[in-house]
């Protein structure tokens, strides 16, 4: 298990893996086929990759590349048609609803493109809602401070800008100290300046909490922030690349 995770498939191009420590996430030969009417859509084709503790990974691809499907499977929101998804030793692809719920509850944080905050709860309460589920959460105020929202604790979503709402969503995702943070186009609905603020918050979470972060995006500019970039096209991984020099969110330009 301690060997450097290096899983090659005939379909996958040569990749460079991050060699540090024990992997926390293992995706092996995962395919996903949707049946729409009489047509089969191969959203993913025998995808392989691993994630390691503390990594900042960007899953990059245009729309239709299968990146959302991949994120859904990683978040146990969806099951692969074939293949294996392991979180540590737990096989998520064979888990039932209860186990998946527990996995999401205890180990994963989610950040959505459209924030998905509970409109009837304030920033602090949105964060607290998730904190209450966790065993060892940080105080909601601390999570909000981490994303720079100490001043907006008692504001309702409708009283905040999109960027603020997304940072609340990040705070909500990290408050339980997750091992894995899954972000679905976190800047997709935001303008450039606000998007950068959100990316800064994510980078900070990655550094200060050591959470593994997987961001899916079609925005290639964000790739520079990552330790590794996994590029998808038409349901296949076309490249796994390690950034020799990470840039800071401030340097991101798009």
């Amino acid at each position, binding site marked *: 298990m301690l060997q450097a995770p290096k899983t090659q498939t005939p379909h996958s191009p040569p990749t460079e893996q991050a060699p540090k420590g024990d992997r926390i996430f293992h995706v092996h030969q995962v395919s996903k086929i949707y049946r729409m009417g009489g047509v089969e859509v191969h959203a993913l084709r025998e995808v392989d990759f691993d994630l390691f503790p503390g990594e900042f990974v960007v899953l990059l691809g245009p729309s239709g590349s299968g990146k*959302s499907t991949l994120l*859904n499977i990683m*978040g146990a*929101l*969806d099951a692969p048609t074939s293949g294996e998804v392991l979180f540590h030793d737990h096989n998520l692809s064979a888990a039932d*609803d*209860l186990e998946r*719920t*527990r996995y*999401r*509850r*205890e180990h*994963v944080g*989610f950040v*959505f493109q*459209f924030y*998905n905050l*509970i*409109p*009837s*709860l*304030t920033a602090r*309460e949105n964060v*607290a*809602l*998730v904190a*209450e*589920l966790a065993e060892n959460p940080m105080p909601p105020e601390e999570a909000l401070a981490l994303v720079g929202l100490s001043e907006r604790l008692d504001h*309702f*979503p*409708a009283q905040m800008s999109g960027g603020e709402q997304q940072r609340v969503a990040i705070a*909500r995702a990290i408050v339980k100290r997750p091992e894995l943070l899954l972000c*679905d186009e976190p800047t997709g609905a935001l303008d450039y300046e606000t998007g950068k603020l959100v990316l800064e918050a994510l980078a900070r979470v990655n550094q200060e909490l050591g959470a593994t972060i997987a961001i899916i995006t079609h925005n290639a500019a964000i790739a520079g922030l990552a330790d590794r970039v996994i590029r998808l096209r038409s349901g296949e991984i076309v490249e796994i690349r390690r950034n020799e020099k990470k840039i800071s969110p401030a340097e991101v330009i798009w």
Partner: protein
Amino acid sequence: MASSLDRKLLRDLGRSWGQMVAVAAVAACAVTAFVAMGSTYRSLLGSQRLYYAEYRFADVFASLQRAPDSLAARIAAIPGVARAETRVVRDVTLDVPGLAEPATGRLISIPDRGRPELNDLAIRRGRYVAPGRTNEVIASEAFAEANGLRPGDAIGAILNGRWEKLTIVGVALSPEYVYEVKGGGAIFPDNRRFGVLWASRAMVAPALGMQGAFNDVAVSLGAGANEAEVIAQLDHLLARYGGLGAYGRDDQISYRFLSDEIAQNRATATIVPGIFLAAAAFLLYTVLSRLIATQRPQVGTLKAFGYSNTAIGWHYLKMALAAVGAGLVMGVAAGAYFGFRLTRVYQIFYRFPMLHYELSAGLVIVASLISLLAGALGAVAAVRKAVQMPPAEAMRPPGPARYRAGWLERMGIDRRVPLEGRMIVRDIERRPWRAAFTWLGIAMSVAILVVGFYFFDAIGYLMRLQFETVQREDVAVTFSDPRSAASRYNLANLPGVLRSEPYRAVAARLSYEHRSRRVVVMGERAAGILRPLVDEKLRIHTLPPEGIVLTRRLGELLGVKEGERVTLEVLEGARLVRQVPVSALVDEPIGYSAYMDLDALNRLLREGGTTSGAFLKVDPREAPRLYALLKRTPAVRSIAVKQASVESFKDTLAESVKISTTILVALACTLAFGMVYNGIRVALSERARELASLRVLGFSRGEVRTILLGREALLLAAAIPAGWALGAVACELIARAVASDLFRLPVVITAQTLAIAAGIVVGASALTALGVSRQLDHLDLVETLKTGE
């Protein structure tokens, strides 16, 4: 030819069929209640009018001691009197085959030839009495049926001290006894032990010692006659013949009960459908508002293509009309069915020769109009917003739902409330009207049930009060004539009599200022235990040695207070007039009565220990012997045996309320279902994304379900006490509305009723919630997260 919009309409209907069914069901309830109760009301009212007209029901009635036949002409000559018919009427003891205890028969004379001019009989079986034949009687139908008597059967009767065999030749109904009770405090029918017998004047008069005389008169009024005036004149005329006071239809027991019943029907036929129509309109409003909210871009697109506001408005209006129309069809069918059943139920208590069930086209048209109007009202309110929006704005997704800390939180209540609770509270505060309507709807369904079961409670309470607390005797004996004190000792010596308490009953008119009332003053022994003076709260009062005790209702009618003096005019014998102080007012729910200490009454009447009868406590083992003996005692006019009648009445009552209870339970459950179902469906639609997010964030299905159902549960919890209170208020109003001089329904609602009402609504809501919340399991986590609204 279906236009594209119509095809969209059909598909939209298909997609939200669950909610459309809820709307249709609630609308169906409104129409069912309206049609069932309305048609029952009209059927009863129509039958009553027709019956009274065809069978010439009298307008004014009077009893007296005895007057010569010659007086009849003078009665007929009273201005305003159209017809007058004198009669001989007396309660006699009957020996009914198969009935151990004696029964009471009200023997009423009918003309020897021809039919009665007033209060004609409807012969149901057999024939009218034949002239010249003695001992032929016609029995009332309820009595005949209860005792299995048919034409040709014989019963025994004590007529003027002798046993006579009477042959039943016919079974009939009379407009005077649509509701057949004995009167004089007995308001529950006991058809086995009380019946009316009609016999020819030629037979009745000699048998009761009334040759050439009469002791009862019925009068009909001409057009424009003043009833009060006629009553006054009649009283004046009859005064020297022992007149017991004339009275109009309002004081005629059968008329009063029937009219009260019809009036009650009319009230419920208006109120209950009103509740449901309001509920249906509200449901349509929320369902369509929600639907239109999800179709905002479509509305915008349609408008951008050039569809007019009217076309779009009409499009959504048609959805409302489709749902209400479906409910209307179901409602008319169910209403006709239940109306027919209800009308049949009235046959148990109210005997009509022709109780026709009548469902008029007019009623259906009115039902259609008001239900469609209510539907349109709800729809228009919802549609208005959508069509007024400029297309560009409509095509943009709506902004995020605006929440804020409501007044509850500003008051600082929420600090200890869990987050889920805060979500619910804020959701309610954000749309307070919607929550209020849901709450009110659920409360209404609780209230409907409380009212429905209240009738059981009230009548049960009255019966317990009457038969257990007040009437502690086993037998009440009435003498043919007032007797000397000595007779009471005779009664006490009869076999099986454990205790005998004499009473004196005297007809009197009580007056205070210009108000007066005919009553029977009961003289009882203050130390007696068989007929305690009991008030509504079951407190026992002791008769004061002096003065008169009135029921509060009587006191109110007279406008007299404790300590004031009323004028007591005795309507028998020497017709003494006395001033008597009112020593107390007692809340007695049944009848209006006046009580005095027996000795004080005897002193007032200047008679020494005279009694009219006695209450007896009887050893059950000796009862048959005693009854046989009493049956054959000429001095005894009638005997009322309390016990067996209670159970039979309860059964009859249970039978009769079964159908109305079924309707009420169905209505209440549907209303609760409609409210809860709609509430959850709308919440599910509005919050699907929010709930899916929670699932993604690690909330379990159960937890998400709690959040979804929490609002409904909270509203339900808040609605139950409100429903109880609403129900109690409604009961109070109903009790007040139906309170007559005959009896008042006490406002007693048992804990059982409250529990059942709440239980049914909670059960219906829980089942509904369980059903709807299963849709949570199909919540598409992936799909819901991708898009915005």
